[in-house]
């Protein structure tokens, strides 16, 4: 049981956290023909857009209601209406996902009411789905925004089936925002190998996997279709991945009666054994040969790797579900979780295998990561890693100083195996050669503690 501590500092230093609206915007990007719209100042969108461009190295569809000072006083109805009309004319999307920001929430704009009025006044926009989601910047974090947007899409778009017409092969999958397009592709392969027909909401593997579209598209390049979202009520099961998706899964169950199964994580041997067992039972298909083989390969990687993982101290900073995934996995490989820092509250946190979990920033992380063998966090950890001189695995969003962030795959037997190789190689590369001084008696050794040194 970890003790969950909330950092009491007045000044956040080197934020780990990002804001809800852009988490929600990313969720909308997993839908085909979609345009996320942030209701706020144009900077709210611009920062998010640049962040995703740097992370995915892809064009990012994202618009703004461009609230001016006057509009923040008078209310944003005109801006929302104009934005929707402009987007419809310029980009012709199937879905506009509208996320509030701090600006809109403080003004108290009733976005849902706005949309009703806009619907009534613009019958010509009838073919465009409009989904609003409340995502104030001053509450929660990125993953909360993602989860809220998925829940709202379920509420607004999924149709309640008229009668029991369950398609026995159809499965809904609700992935948390910590799953990359690569992870989703891997899971699709796995589900299909059991003769299942998986539909991911959201599906970033269609939109942000990095591919060359045949034509220019101002909206998302792919993702789950609106038609397939509407039909989610006809699936046999819903699989939610990550605690953050529980709310959306429950909402879906309430609306449609589709039962859900939640996997906290899909990295590690035990977690994937559970997945394989579940899929086999649900589908009636025995675990395919390919995955039996992959399981065996994972076990071999664990055997080869455990020499290098055992006793290592790892510091992890990530959003709750990714933190849970990584902390549990390194612990299963024999490492000690020296530091665990996260962004927002989650029932998961107290089960993380660490003494304490801090809801804080990368300054809190840097202080606690001193002396660790490995730092694991997103690219903003680079300054800390450099100062501490500790090997640094970049994971999460944003990863802006390495290639292939969208294809970093850590789910499944194969994803876990590859992660063992990646991290194991980092441990191997940072091993120290012995010198005549290595085994000097303790009196001659200086303290291994390195103090946080700030130069200016």
């Amino acid at each position, binding site marked *: 049981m970890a003790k969950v501590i909330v950092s009491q*500092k*007045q*000044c*956040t*230093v*080197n*934020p780990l*956290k*990002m*804001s809800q*609206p*852009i988490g929600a915007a990313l969720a909308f990007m997993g839908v085909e023909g979609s345009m996320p*719209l942030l209701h706020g*100042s*144009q*900077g*709210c*969108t*611009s*920062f*998010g857009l*640049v*962040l995703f*461009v*740097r992370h995915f*190295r892809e*064009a990012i569809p994202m*618009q*703004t*209601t*461009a*609230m*001016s*000072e006057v*509009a*923040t006083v008078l209310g944003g109805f005109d*801006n929302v209406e*104009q*934005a*929707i*009309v*402009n*987007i419809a004319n*310029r980009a012709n999307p199937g879905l506009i996902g509208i996320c509030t920001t*701090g*600006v809109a929430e*403080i003004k108290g704009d009733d976005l849902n009411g706005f949309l009703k009025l806009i619907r009534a006044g613009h019958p010509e926009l009838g073919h465009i789905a409009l989904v609003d989601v409340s995502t*104030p*910047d*001053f*509450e929660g*974090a990125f993953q909360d925004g993602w989860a809220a947007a998925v829940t709202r899409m379920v509420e607004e778009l999924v149709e309640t089936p008229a009668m029991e017409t369950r398609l026995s092969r159809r499965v809904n999958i609700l992935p948390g925002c910590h799953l990359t397009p690569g992870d989703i592709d891997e899971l699709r392969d796995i589900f299909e190998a059991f003769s299942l027909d998986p539909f991911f909401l959201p599906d970033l593997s269609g939109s942000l996997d990095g591919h*060359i*579209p045949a034509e*220019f598209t101002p909206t998302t390049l792919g993702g789950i279709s609106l038609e397939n979202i509407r039909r989610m009520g006809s699936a046999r099961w819903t699989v939610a991945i990550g605690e953050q998706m529980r709310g959306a899964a429950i909402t879906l169950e309430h609306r449609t009666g589709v039962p859900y199964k939640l996997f906290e994580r899909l990295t590690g041997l035990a977690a994937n054994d559970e997945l394989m067992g579940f899929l086999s039972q649900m589908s009636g298909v025995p675990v395919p040969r390919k995955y039996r083989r992959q399981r065996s390969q994972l076990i071999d990687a664990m055997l080869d790797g455990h020499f290098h993982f055992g006793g290592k101290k790892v510091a992890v900073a990530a959003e709750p579900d990714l933190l849970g995934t990584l902390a549990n996995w390194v612990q299963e490989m024999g490492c000690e979780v020296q530091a665990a820092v996260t962004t927002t509250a989650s029932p998961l946190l107290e089960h993380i295998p660490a003494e304490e979990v801090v809801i804080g920033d990368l300054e809190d992380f840097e202080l606690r990561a001193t002396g660790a063998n490995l730092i694991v966090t997103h690219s*903003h950890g680079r*300054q800390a890693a450099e100062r501490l001189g500790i090997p640094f695995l970049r994971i999460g969003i944003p990863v802006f100083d390495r290639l292939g962030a969208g294809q970093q795959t850590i789910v499944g037997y194969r994803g876990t195996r590859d992660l063992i190789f990646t991290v194991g190689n980092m441990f191997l590369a940072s091993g120290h050669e012995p010198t005549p001084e290595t085994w000097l008696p303790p009196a001659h050794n200086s303290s291994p503690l390195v103090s946080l040194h*700030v*130069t*200016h």
Partner: protein
Amino acid sequence: MSDLRVKVQQVFDEPGCAANQAKPTRDRKKGCNKLLAPGAAAGGCAFDGAKIALQPITDVAHLVHGPIACEGNSWDGRGSKSSGSQLYRTSFTTNMTEQDIVFGGEKHLYKAIKEVVEKYNPAAVFVYQTCVPAMIGDDLETVCKAAGKKLGKPVIPVNVPGFVGSKNLGNKLAGEALLDYVIGTEEPEETTPYDINIIGEYNLSGELWQVKPLLDELGIRILACISGDSKYHEIARSHRARAAMMVCSKAMINVARKMEERYGIPYFEGSFYGIGDMSDSLRKIAQLLVDRGAPADLLVRTEVVIEREEARAWQRIAPCRPRLLGKRVLLFTGGVKSWSVVAALQETGLVLTGTSVKKSTPGDKERIKELMKDDAHMFDDLKPREMYKMLKEARADIMLSGGRTQFVALKAKMPWLDINQERHHAYAGYEGMVALVREIDKALSNPIWEQIRRPAPWENVAMDDELAIHIA
């Protein structure tokens, strides 16, 4: 807020800005803050602009008063480099929560400033106001004043809530903060007849360092660069410079103009991009200094350096020229960079097939027209779809633009080069021009283009036939 409104109005009515002065009185009062179109806007807010302009000051703490979005979503993303302190890359924010919204964020802000000063001992703290605290009425100026007095450090309010306008306005408001609170507050230990300020240069990718060695050689001292690789005290003492160069014409014209007005520092508008522009800038710097009393031999020494460096640059560019000659470039960038880069590219034999003039002043446009003759297009607002079409139809060989449009080119399988602030290469001065030409050359002649444009095996009929024969 009303103070801010007055400030915004003043900034817009900028006598130093030719574009502004050319307008009729009524339009001039409206300022250059174009109303943003909801749902069709691109670009940063005023806060973003202010951060771009001031973050290059390296030894101060940049503290953002707002919810996590403003700083958490954007920090460590700007490529200005430092020769010393790395403090400017440390991110500070009040990370406002619901509690602040209910009770007001002023006390929180005060305590945050105190924490920063106690933990990091910066030369000063720059505090940025964002939309949310502005809406709930947090009085930035008063908190900064109180904190500065109590903590014995300069605490500079930068009042730039995003909703007041664009990035460009934010640049100017940042300049106002320097004029109001920093410039002229300290005296330099010594001055020389060779002291200059460089205004509007942010040392992105270290570009200032491509220029500085030549100034050093000439004995010209950069008293302050506003704000690339600068220290707080340098800017505080910058009012004692003898002359100034304003680099990015629209970003900080108010700083250059008001420093001339208040401290009698003459300035000129110049560019470090392109061989000709670099030489002109060196000449003008020397001339202004000599006009203000520096020994006249500076002019001769400057010509010697120019001649030597131009020759050296051309010599290094020469091997690339045959490969670049006649290659068509589509150029998308803002303001001053358009005409200065146009000239620079033409020097190397490249042909400009089109350029954006969205952020350019009428003066800029005139210069571009002159430079490009009739053989190119100026686009006010080229939609990405059109841009894609142009590239796809191979009406250009390479696009030079900012990060936002890079995928339009790349997805059309066209070479692309980053020339905006997030770029990784430095393109200033003679060194920079050589680097730019080499980068364009590398991009154009990379072997991937031929490979990736090849049809896929299932699109290639000949291959299908061959396969069929093989199988048969």
